[in-house]
């Protein structure tokens, strides 16, 4: 008797849902017969037998989510060669590897797509190229604060450089607003606006990706945030100085604006003022009442490094990858209390006080407006995007949290690179 385990159908696959058994207990099968249909985040695949045998017992039912390597069935190889690669005398757990699937040439229909999903910092050791490690070491950048955009999610030199340039430019300030720009000056102009309690470094990976795609990318620290010296007493203040920065960086050209979360508020105001070519909002605030008030207040008046660490964990669907040092630094920033007034006005009594729904409705008649939303968002409710006008394009990320550009950087980059240049 041999145990068949959940195969790994792609490099980033951690588990899969059994959607159907295609062979019933007691039934025999031969090499190439589809045994089971498995659904992953990416695809549904029929998993074939790599040799002959008989299905003795299924250990999981359709609908079960099973971790890669966990038993899914007992099979009887009845003297045939053990194609599972295990020892058939003992009841040993024997995974069927994806290599075997490819080698057999019979994986069907819908082969697993090549793993493209960047996943560095998603648990397990980080993938970093040697040259990126060196550059980070020299620049004093904590690698765990970076998101890899390279093959298999590895951190490459460009990610470090992107981060460094997003961090650099302390002297570049207009009206007290700190900003940095990268990419060719003749490129399509793009302005990235961070959200509540963030700063321009949250865009590092996306900014370097857009710059690499030939765009002129500017990142700013909003009033009350990062290196910007201006304060924000209310959500309206977040837009202070933004149009001056846009004028300075893009020399009169209208930029495409990409804003995250609360950054949607100043971005929308800028668009209403006619200073924007298109608007892309990632997990935008202002679409409904619901908001994680504990997060907002907790970040305004952080109780401890540990508390900040817990709150940051709510942002992303996967570990943030921030090192203890990085979190201590964030804690130090937040302790200055610059966000306290803003948090009070933002929350009001019953939830979010800001509302951009009707503004987006009218903007969507004048320019492309798109919204990216993660269904595992724990700060805002993705379902609030349902109120948006049909003219607004909504991109859904079923497995992303409040930071789709952290959780699925490659897809977000794709959407923007394509959307902003056509």
């Amino acid at each position, binding site marked *: 008797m041999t145990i068949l385990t959940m195969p790994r159908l792609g490099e980033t696959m951690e588990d899969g849902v059994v959607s159907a058994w295609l062979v019933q207990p007691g039934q025999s099968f031969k090499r190439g017969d589809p045994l089971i249909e498995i659904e992953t985040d990416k695809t549904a695949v029929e998993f074939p037998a790599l040799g002959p045998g008989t299905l003795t017992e299924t250990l999981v039912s359709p609908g079960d989510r099973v971790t890669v390597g966990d038993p899914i069935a007992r099979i009887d190889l009845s003297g045939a060669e053990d194609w599972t690669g295990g020892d058939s005398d003992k009841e040993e757990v024997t995974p069927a590897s994806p290599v075997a699937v490819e080698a057999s040439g019979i994986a069907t229909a819908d082969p697993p797509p090549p793993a493209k999903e960047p996943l560095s910092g998603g648990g397990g050791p980080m993938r970093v*190229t*040697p*040259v990126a*490690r*060196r550059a980070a070491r020299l620049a004093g950048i904590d690698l765990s604060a970076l998101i890899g955009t390279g093959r298999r999610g590895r951190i*490459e030199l460009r990610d470090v450089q992107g981060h460094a340039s997003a961090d650099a430019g302390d002297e570049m300030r207009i009206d007290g607003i700190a900003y940095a720009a990268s990419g060719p000056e003749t490129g399509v102009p793009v302005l990235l606006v961070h959200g509540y309690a963030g700063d321009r470094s949250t865009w590092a990976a996306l900014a370097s990706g857009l710059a690499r795609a030939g765009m002129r990318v500017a990142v700013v620290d909003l009033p009350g945030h990062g290196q910007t010296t201006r304060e924000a007493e209310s959500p309206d203040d977040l837009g202070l100085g933004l149009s001056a920065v846009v004028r300075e960086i893009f020399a009169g050209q209208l930029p495409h604006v990409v804003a995250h979360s609360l950054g949607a508020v100043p971005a929308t105001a800028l668009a209403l003022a006619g200073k924007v070519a298109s608007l892309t909002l990632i997990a935008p605030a202002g679409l409904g009442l619901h908001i994680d008030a504990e997060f907002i207040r907790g970040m305004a008046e952080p109780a401890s490094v540990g508390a900040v660490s817990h709150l940051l964990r709510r942002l992303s669907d996967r570990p943030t990858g921030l090192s203890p040092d990085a979190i201590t630094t964030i804690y130090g920033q937040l302790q200055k209390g610059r966000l306290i007034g803003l948090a009070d006005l933002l929350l009001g009594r019953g939830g979010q006080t800001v509302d951009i729904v009707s503004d987006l409705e009218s903007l969507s008649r004048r320019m492309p407006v798109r919204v990216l939303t993660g269904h595992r968002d724990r700060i805002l409710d993705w379902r609030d995007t349902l109120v948006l006008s049909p003219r607004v394009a909504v991109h859904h990320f079923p497995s992303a949290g409040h930071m789709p550009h952290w959780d699925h950087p490659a897809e977000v980059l794709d959407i923007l690179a394509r959307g902003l240049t056509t």
Partner: protein
Amino acid sequence: MVQMTYRDALRQALRDAMAEDDRVFVIGEEVGRYGGAYGVTKGLIEEFGSDRLMDTPISEAAIVGAAVGAAMAGLKPVAELMYVDFIGMTMDQLGNQAAKIRYMFGGQIGVPMVLRTQGGTGRSAGAQHSQSLEAYVLHTPGLRLAMPATVADAYHLLRGALRQPDPVVFIEHKALYTLKEEVDLSAPVPDWGKAAIRRKGDDLVIVTYSRQVHNALKAAEELAARGIEATVIDLRTLNPLDFDTIRAEVERVGRAMVVSEGVMTAGVAAELSARISEECFDFLHDPVVRVAGEDIPISVSVALEAASVPTTALVRETAERLVA
């Protein structure tokens, strides 16, 4: 400038060395009257006589053994092995004697000989006449190793080898004898032990030697048409190895591929790749890639022979995957 083949350049180097220095003589099978299996020594017996173009019986051990003794006695022998595949027959004379004598006699005496031979594929010569065995030589401290890729280097490296105080194994490539190039033998050339950068690019460094230099250069042209610019380093000598040139280029560019016709496993490409990984690690964007011969005996079949060693297409495709 003069049009010359690789074979002519080798003959010219021998002729000039023999005219210049009475102590230089050639010893091997069919090197005199017949003029060498690949015609390199053709006509030299008429110029220099049979004392200096010595035909021997079929005994590689005797040829190399005699050359080692002659070198110790003050002559400058150029021994010839028809095929590098026969080097195993000479391993005691070469590895235990020639390579060790300077060390075992406290530096009082050396073995200034050149062992000329040829290797590689391209003539459908079968498993025992097509190997690239430079790793055997490189693995033996005390032996120098030169592997010319161009007509000018055929001349200059052979002249250089004859000036060395230590034994030099000089491996020609059988597919290059008819290579014809415009050369100016009086033009400045890189010193002995110095690699040549044959092409300069910013995306990838291809480190190679002997015939694969030509494949690498062709691949580099095709890559350039696709926007990938490769540097091609021709090592010229593997011992001494000009690692300074390799290091400078790899650190500048950040990606390296080593191309060798010898087999992949424990071969020259493996050694170079390991050393680049160790010494240039902090500068690498990607793992160093080896493109080398298959770990199999070379077939007589023309198609299988060609598929057993790196081709221009293989170098190009591997480079595209690496840089992508």
